[in-house]
């Protein structure tokens, strides 16, 4: 079929991600750097290409400049195609008015025309805030086998955490009986991953119905899925057993980054059969100097490292001078950490400069993550305490 697609993915990338502040102060959450060289959105996009899905609409809204730049026409993911490919879909003005995306369902509703261009049998709904490697083709096979109207990917979570998620209660064949958003007393441990496959006709029907309801919050979890359940539609779960993390908070973002470390990392990024594709920044290979000591870490390119790094995720173009130390931290691109400075249990956004002898954060045991915002300058000898979030330059002492 060269004039239609079997499946089209719609990736919700417009959320503000305020719990990731200050990392999301000036940029959208899907484009927040991750894992030494990626952006969060590389994971769902790479999952798409690796699953054989080559047509993706990316719905943008909040602070889209960097995201749009990053996506371009989808070249890094081989999605610059004659028919299909990656398309950025911002809110727009129409003859009958203009609107921001009011909710996740409304965002898709406003782009039904985009979906119809490809006349797909199925629509995959994704979000740009999870780190995972998943073959959507397996889920689609199940969806087809079940003759489902909607299939929801779920992951088994510990019972004590279940009340943080949307929980699916199913029969023994995986058919959804009940959906509870953040239940106080969860009846199951199957948490929705925010990954849905809809049969196109059902999706469009319920989006249109939802749009006509002025009291609706236009949200998949709150409206579309409950409405479909109400009508007895065929809704199934697809149990995913691989690595999946919601990186919605600074601590979960930090922890997921750390999962890529070690000799047998939970988040395996070196898999030649499931590459995570990304936009390259063309730096020279990292130089590791005479006084360097790097253990239990990943480290990007263009770096000049002469200090000590332990249990950390270090991005590109980092200068780490002799005697400087990084431990249990995420250091995003372009940071400079000068002689004798110490960074421990912290996240440094891009372009941060830490002058001689400054101390950022403290032992991980404190449980308090220190965060330094983009391009912030911490003066010589200054101290940033554990748990502090610094977005303005700090004078040296």
């Amino acid at each position: 079929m060269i004039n239609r697609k079997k499946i089209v993915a719609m990736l919700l990338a417009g959320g503000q991600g305020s719990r990731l502040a200050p990392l999301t102060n000036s940029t959208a959450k899907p484009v927040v750097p991750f894992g030494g060289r990626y952006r969060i959105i590389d994971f769902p996009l790479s999952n798409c290409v690796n699953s054989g899905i080559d047509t993706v609409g990316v719905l943008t809204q909040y602070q889209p400049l960097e995201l749009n730049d990053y996506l371009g026409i989808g070249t890094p993911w081989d999605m610059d195609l004659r028919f299909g490919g990656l398309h950025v879909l911002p809110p727009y003005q129409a003859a009958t008015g203009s609107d921001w995306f009011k909710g996740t369902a409304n965002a898709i509703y406003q782009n039904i025309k985009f979906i119809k261009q490809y006349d797909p049998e199925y629509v995959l709904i994704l979000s740009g805030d999870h780190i995972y490697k998943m073959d959507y083709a397996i889920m689609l096979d199940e969806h087809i086998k079940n003759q489902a109207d909607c299939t929801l990917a779920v992951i088994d979570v510990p019972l004590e955490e279940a009340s943080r998620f949307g929980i699916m209660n199913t029969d023994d064949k995986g058919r959804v009986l009940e959906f509870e958003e953040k239940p106080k007393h969860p009846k199951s441990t199957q948490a929705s991953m925010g990954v849905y496959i809809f049969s196109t006709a059902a999706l469009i029907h319920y989006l249109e119905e939802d749009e006509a309801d002025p009291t609706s919050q236009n949200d998949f979890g709150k409206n579309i899925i409950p409405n479909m359940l109400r009508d007895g539609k065929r809704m199934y779960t697809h149990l995913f057993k691989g690595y999946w993390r919601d990186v919605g908070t600074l601590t979960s973002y930090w922890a997921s980054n750390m999962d890529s470390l070690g000799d047998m990392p939970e988040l395996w990024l070196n898999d030649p059969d499931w590459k995570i594709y990304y936009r390259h920044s063309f730096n020279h290979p990292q130089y590791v100097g005479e006084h360097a000591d790097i253990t239990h870490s990943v480290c990007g390119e263009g770096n000049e490292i002469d200090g000590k790094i332990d249990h950390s995720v270090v991005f590109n173009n980092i200068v780490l001078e002799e005697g400087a130390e990084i431990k249990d931290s995420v250091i995003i691109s372009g940071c400079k950490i000068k002689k004798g400075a110490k960074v421990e249990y912290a996240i440094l956004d891009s372009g941060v400069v830490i002058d001689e002898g400054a101390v950022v954060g403290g032992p991980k045991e404190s449980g308090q993550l220190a965060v330094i915002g983009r391009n912030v300058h911490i003066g010589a000898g200054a101290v940033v305490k554990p748990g502090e979030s610094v977005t303005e330059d700090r004078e040296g002492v």
Partner: protein
Amino acid sequence: MNMNALGFIFADSVDGALNELTEKRTLGAVPFGARYRVIDFLISNMVNAGIRNIGIATTGKYDSLMHHVRSGAPWDLDRKRSRLTFLPPYASFNGGGTYENRLEALQYHLQYLKNFSEEYVLISGCNYVANIDFEKVLEFHKESGARITALYRNSKIHRQQELTVMEYKIGEDGRILDHRNAEILDEVRPLSINAYLMKLDDLIEITERSMREGKHSFRRDLLFPMIESGEKVMGYEVPGAVLYMDDLATYLKNSLDLLNKDVRASLFHVDGFPILTNVKDSAPARYGDKAKVVNSLIADGTIIEGEVRNSIIFRGVRIGKDSVVENSVIMQESTIGDGVRLNYAVLDKNVIVQDCRMLSGYITHPFYMGVNEVI
């Protein structure tokens, strides 16, 4: 930034250098600097100067080069208005087969040269790695009013092989007065890097004439007679690091020179002059609990669990636990097992060194393992 010149690259070594490394690939495709191929530097230099059309002449063993350079996309050379063209040999009714000299290559690809309206042409071999501002070379060329500007480096030759490195005699005004084969070891001399700038029309005309006269050699039949007859042939000294590939020992030495901060600065840290290459979408380098890395260049996609000193580690290399790699170059996708010792080794692409092997060469005589070999 739009240099009105055509780029013409000779991807083969005319001088037969780097025997081991070019057994299965052409010189331009020799891996260098942990993530590059030698030709990346030259193509990047040309593109950084705004050269929009580049032809790459190559006679054989070019699959590795074609696989690497592909359509030229990493340099934005796969466009309507800028293009990279592979110029392999081809058979035709009036002969065919291949050629051995640069002038013959130009004769062979005369039709390609005639396609372009660029005023100048920059022709260069692939024997060196440098970050050259070709716009400055063009400025120099125009100001001097030279017919040909020949680029050179002030350097020593380290080892006299059968190959011929050309040495110039440069006058006070920068003019090339004489030439000879370099003979003196370990003394800094102006040595040719086989890169020349001239008018495209002039090159086409000279090439056509050389065909009529049955001449084949760029240097012997074209350059030297010009120098001798008093034509204005200027020498342009390439500033900064120029790493010239003579043989395997200089390859290792040049590679280890990248550990020198000034050399790295001169090649990689020139603002607005990036060195681009084909991308692999590798994961970042991963260091194990007992990793120890000192004074080394580490590419992406590597997994390091052992010790690395004074070495160049390419993309996708794995170094096992309790292994010690020193003064060595390990090319892409090679696997070093546990408890291995390597010193002064050049390991080509995709080799496997099994556990507990001890392999050593010397700086002047590196230990070499060929593509896909297993020890």
